């Protein structure tokens, strides 16, 4: 089919939003094309990323994890970024842009709390009122991040209804923004939503891929054979993939949450693997839906992957065959979480653990050759997940 007229990624993307949001989306789209590329804005962004957010982040070779996986594993350390996840790249960019546009208030949705936390951080830094919508279920399971957001001065609004997770939080943020577009910027946290958000968020995460590409060329002398990242909405994956899309010999692998297993609707979040094209949250993309087009609930142990949609660029990369998306269960992710913690001294976020779990299976599944060089986006640190982890896998000695 022909693509959408605005913001198309192949047959996906577009600006499927209420007419009432159109002026704000046009303003933002214009800003992406004029303000963002300006040398003044780029200098301010680079400075803030360096001195406040801690860029560049390193890449780390993982010898023990490599042995277990049968491939040469390198991780891009977005877990070391200020705030503990890649989300900070996007909030610095959009925060500075919102300021330029004269907005005084930031709103955001959050799943795992990482994006909400990052938005609260930049809101405090830039002196902007910040309000974060978060599913009531996620508020419960990510309490450390909720407390941190409140410490940073943000208001966290628990959203009930539906599964009370990320999808409902986005609905609520869109509702707020429709009423508040004059003074408010919706700081959307992933590469979803109506155009220009998928392009805008991608643009601010491209730094992940561009740094990692230079770093691995420097450290290993060559490009990786594969790049691997977890995909919920897909922003950390797009950030990494963006620098390698034109390198045809570099495989792009996305780990989707298979949750409790993919036999039951509602037990997983395998949007690309098991979904179908639909319209959700402003874009034509793959969604989990029933025969009528009602959106289904997703599940993942990783709150940040618990979403029945996906960024439209991933939908395009999937259909064009440029990237492959593979399911990883909660159990596999928790196993990888433990392995990385014990063998490499790094506690990954549950989200990132999905990508690591995929690496452990990549040779057996024929996704990469044995001994291949694999670059994984370690998109966040796992401190936020400790309560959930110990709830799921209590220490057997009772200590």
């Amino acid at each position, binding site marked *: 089919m022909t693509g959408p007229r605005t913001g198309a990624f192949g047959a996906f993307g577009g600006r499927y939003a209420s007419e009432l949001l*159109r002026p704000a989306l046009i303003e933002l789209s214009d800003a992406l094309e004029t303000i963002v590329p300006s040398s003044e804005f780029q200098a301010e962004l680079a400075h803030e990323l360096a001195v406040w957010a801690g860029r560049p982040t390193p890449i780390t070779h993982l010898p023990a994890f490599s042995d277990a996986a049968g491939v040469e594993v390198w991780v891009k350390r977005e877990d070391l970024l200020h705030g503990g996840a890649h989300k900070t790249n996007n909030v610095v960019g959009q925060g500075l842009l919102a300021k330029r546009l004269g907005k005084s208030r930031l709103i955001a949705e959050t799943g795992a709390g990482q994006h909400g936390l990052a938005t609260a951080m930049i809101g405090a830094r830039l002196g902007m009122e910040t309000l974060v919508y978060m599913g009531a279920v996620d508020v419960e399971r990510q309490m450390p991040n909720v407390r941190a957001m409140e410490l940073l001065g943000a208001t966290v609004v628990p959203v009930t209804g539906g599964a009370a997770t990320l999808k409902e939080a986005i609905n609520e943020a869109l509702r707020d923004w429709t*009423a508040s577009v004059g003074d408010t910027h919706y700081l959307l946290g992933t590469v979803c939503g109506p155009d220009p958000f998928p392009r805008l968020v991608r643009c601010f995460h491209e730094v992940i891929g561009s740094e990692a590409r230079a770093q691995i060329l420097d450290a290993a002398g060559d490009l990786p054979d594969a790049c691997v990242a977890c995909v919920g909405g897909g922003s950390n994956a797009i950030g990494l993939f963006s620098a390698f899309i034109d390198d045809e010999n570099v495989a792009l692998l996305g780990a989707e949450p298979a949750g409790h297993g993919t036999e039951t609707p509602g037990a997983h979040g395998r949007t690309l693997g098991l979904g179908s094209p639909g319209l959700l949250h402003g874009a034509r993309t793959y969604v989990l839906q029933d025969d009528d087009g009602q959106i289904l609930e997703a599940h993942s142990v990783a709150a940040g992957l618990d979403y029945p949609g996906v960024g439209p660029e991933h939908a395009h990369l999937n259909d064009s065959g440029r990237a492959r998306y593979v399911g990883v269960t909660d159990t596999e992710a928790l196993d990888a979480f433990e392995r990385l913690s014990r063998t490499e001294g790094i506690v990954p976020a549950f989200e990132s653990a999905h990508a690591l779990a995929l690496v452990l299976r990549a040779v057996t599944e024929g996704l990469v050759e044995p001994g291949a060089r694999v670059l994984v986006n370690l998109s966040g640190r796992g401190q936020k997940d400790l309560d959930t982890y110990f709830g799921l896998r209590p220490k057997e000695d009772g200590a």
Partner: protein
Amino acid sequence: MSLDLLRARLARPEPSFAPFFMLGDPDPGTSLDVCRAALAGGADMLELGIPFSDPCADGPSVQAACGRALRAGTDVATAFELMESLRRTSQVPFNLLVYGNLAHRRGWGRFVAEASAAGASSILVPDVPLEEGDALAAACADAHVGVVHLAGPRTDDARLRELGEASTGFLYLAGRQGITGARHDDVPQQVRDAVRRAVKIQPASVCVGFGLKTRAHLEAVYGAGARVAIVGSALLDRLATHLDEHGCPPDRDRLLEDMEHWFGELSGHRPQQQED
């Protein structure tokens, strides 16, 4: 040929009162009765929604109505059946409100054909903008169903004209920037100004919704030139006061009597009681 019913209605000198209902809310049987109460109470048109899991252009009242209807098992086919039942005994225009994914999933052609067969006069898809609306417009033209576009207070003149020209049903003007939801105060001057501007600069009949609640509100927007006024969230809220915690109406007769009475007030067929 329900578009002709809409055109005939809009051609009449007096403006139209259109209550909004979510089909299947709180359950398919009660929904049908409530719509019939509205018609008995003097509704000139109906705006009928198909429940969607994620109505993100709508406020809490519509979201709650979607939830009740879906929990009661209202799928798209049921919604069309309800509309068809209403059409059998009523010749008022029906404007169908549907979120894009439900139509996209069936395919635009099939969806609009089914809607037309069920008696829809026009269709509003709040999350499909003009730029992405070719398939919808083509399907509507084929099925002789009117297209309704949404505009808002921040919509500039040029865009308003563009939307009005593409609206073969009518132009739906949101009385204020935001989501649907009932308000308690009067219709502000800027809403009346927005209606006058829309009437003046674009060709389609202007319908006003978002935040209207009383006969006085309706008269204010009629006075500014609106041909249709929609009361939505306030009705859904009133309906909800008759439901128990499971979304069931313990006293259906009382519910219907109350709604019919209120429709009479809103439509101007019955003198209005004091606002509480």
